């Protein structure tokens, strides 16, 4: 019980901090807040004060997840008429969803994918084309974004299955560069100017109207926060269940040692296909929602550099740990948006950071905990 109280207090503190960061206007205030966060993070990392709490969170996962959802919801309600802050919150949520997909590929099955932004883009372009050309319900269009991304991924399956490590990486890099160039020279998809999307609607809800329920009023972005949060909850549940199940065990075995896995009767190719396809599906759905929210997509949103940002999120957070990548996604999205001095330098900064992390702390901020196959006795 004591640890629950501590967890609530910590979550409240973190939520308040994010609120402060999102509301802060002056650059010096933002810099001060970030410096505070770095100092606090460093102290916590060194003193290991949080370790018992993290253990408790792992033991009471439902509670921890509920707390996280409540914290995002509270944040959204407090920020209800700040359009930009809500946009950022939604972006973080969507990037977390995409990185969860990438995590299934990279973190569990060990299938490298340096074309994350491309599959995100496949989802986005599918949403744009379908929303313009057909009258499909938009929930189905979100799913279609995922399905198209997964199908596009099948093109790469053969070369990825036949190669390993570096070679597979080369294939996805070539695909990322190909996809971006293709979008730019293709007239049917709007070329460099990109495509516009209409308003998103789910049932009677029109997403571009402000929220007004009785006396409560708020920005239309609240609806996007809600949809993104639902999507995130679904993706999180999927990924965690996948990891806990025998599928997760099989994926881990395939990643750690292909030959050993095969000699235990695991069909390595099948698990790689499964992980790659599931991952791309999740990334594609996230891309479709992102396209609806921004209302406009262009090749410049889906560059190789963006793919590398996704990979950075994974590595900084601690590869294979959904909580770690959520934290890293928040840092990678929010910090450059708020601290405008570094906005232009963000690719440079995060690439340098990843190099340093790989050299000095290869496990990332929050390393993936060891799999527990038996319940610990209380």
């Amino acid at each position, binding site marked *: 019980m004591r640890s629950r109280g501590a967890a609530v207090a910590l979550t409240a503190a973190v939520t308040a901090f994010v609120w402060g960061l999102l509301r802060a206007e002056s650059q010096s205030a933002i810099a001060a807040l970030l410096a505070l966060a770095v100092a606090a993070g460093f102290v916590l990392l060194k003193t290991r004060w949080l370790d018992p709490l993290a253990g408790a969170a792992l033991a009471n996962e439902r509670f921890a997840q509920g707390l996280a959802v409540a914290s995002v919801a509270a944040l959204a309600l407090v920020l209800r008429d700040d359009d930009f802050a809500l946009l950022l919150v939604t972006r973080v949520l969507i990037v977390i969803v995409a990185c969860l997909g990438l995590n299934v590929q990279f973190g569990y099955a*060990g299938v*490298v994918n*340096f074309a994350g932004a491309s599959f995100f883009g496949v989802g986005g372009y599918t949403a744009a084309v379908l929303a313009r050309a057909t009258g499909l319900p938009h929930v189905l269009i979100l799913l279609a974004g995922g399905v198209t991304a997964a199908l596009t991924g099948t093109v*790469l399956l*053969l*070369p990825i299955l*036949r*190669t390993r*490590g*570096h*070679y597979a*990486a*080369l*294939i996805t*890099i*070539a*695909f990322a*560069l*190909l996809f971006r*160039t*293709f979008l730019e*020279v293709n007239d049917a998809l709007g070329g460099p100017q990109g495509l516009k999307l209409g308003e998103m609607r789910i049932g009677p809800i029109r997403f571009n109207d402000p929220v007004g329920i009785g006396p409560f009023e708020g920005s239309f972005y609240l609806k996007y926060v809600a949809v993104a949060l639902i999507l995130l909850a679904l993706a999180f549940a999927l990924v965690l269940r996948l990891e806990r199940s025998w599928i997760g065990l099989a994926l881990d075995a395939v990643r750690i040692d292909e030959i050993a896995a095969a000699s235990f009767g695991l069909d390595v190719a099948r698990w790689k296909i499964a992980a790659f396809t599931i991952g791309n599906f999740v990334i594609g759905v996230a891309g479709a929602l992102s396209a609806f929210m921004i209302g406009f997509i262009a090749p410049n949103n889906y560059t*190789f*550099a963006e793919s*590398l940002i996704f*990979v*950075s999120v994974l*590595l900084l957070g601690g590869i294979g740990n959904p909580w770690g990548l959520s934290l890293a996604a928040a840092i990678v999205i929010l910090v450059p948006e708020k601290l405008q001095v570094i906005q*232009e*330098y963000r*690719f*440079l900064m995060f*690439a*340098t950071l*990843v*190099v340093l992390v*790989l*050299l000095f702390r*290869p496990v990332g901020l929050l390393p993936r905990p060891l799999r527990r196959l038996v319940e610990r006795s209380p």
Partner: protein
Amino acid sequence: MSVDVVAQYVMNGAMLGMMYALVAVGFTLFFGVLDIIQFSHGDVVTVGAFAGLAAWTLLTASGVTSAGVLLLAVTGAAAAVTALLGVGVARFIVLPVKSAPQLNVLLVTLMGGTVLRECLRLFYPGGSQPKLFPALLPTSGWTFGRFFLRFDNVILLVSGALLIAGTHLLITRTRLGLAIRAVAQDEETARTMGIDFRRVVLVTFALGSALAAFAGVMDGLYYNEVFFGMGLLLGVIGFAAAILGGLGNMYGAIVGGFLFAALQTVGAVALPFASAYKDVFAFAVVIVLMAIRPTGLIGERASERV
């Protein structure tokens, strides 16, 4: 199609092939000594081109007009800067993670390449836009019918071929080359024979990176333009060429480079949508060839790397 048009395409293909081969030889050398892929090699090419451009800008600003001096300075600066950079990459990025999982080496060099690319984009004056590269070689030439063979192209091709031949001689005929081959064959045995492993690795990285610089300068002189992202295409195709030729095999890398150039040139001629999709086609060829022959056309020969 008339003969002169074909000749023009062959010339374009040969230039491309030489650039790819120079980059691919670097990949294959690094793989030989360390069994790793240096993913930032493509961006080292770009750094070489920009170093050459910087040398030209500085010298012309200080009043040097002699084309010969400028040319020497441009190639010299490019080679020196990238050789140093190669040593730095090997010393501070690659060697520390040598015994880490393969994935980490891949990621660290890939992100290192991003750092180089972004540094050029952000810190080179006007680096975010394509930059004009000066024409330093004579642009006159011989006329055969309607085909115009330019001197500068011939000079670039010949000097590229000489460089590769020189590298080959260095590796097969000198003590240093013997050390490189020994390390490539078996690191531990080479160490017990008294070969300074670190030094050999650093020298190999300097050598491969200097070759990349020449590819970069060649690219600049040929297209009269350099761009911070140009190394991505050269790096991906150079790496694919090295794989196709069998990693660790120098002849294979050269053959692979020219093969890619040939495919690209033929593709540009044969496909109706031609030039707009030329890069899309090049990347598609990389993906398809990797699917068909994942270990290369010639195959890795474990017994004779480099």
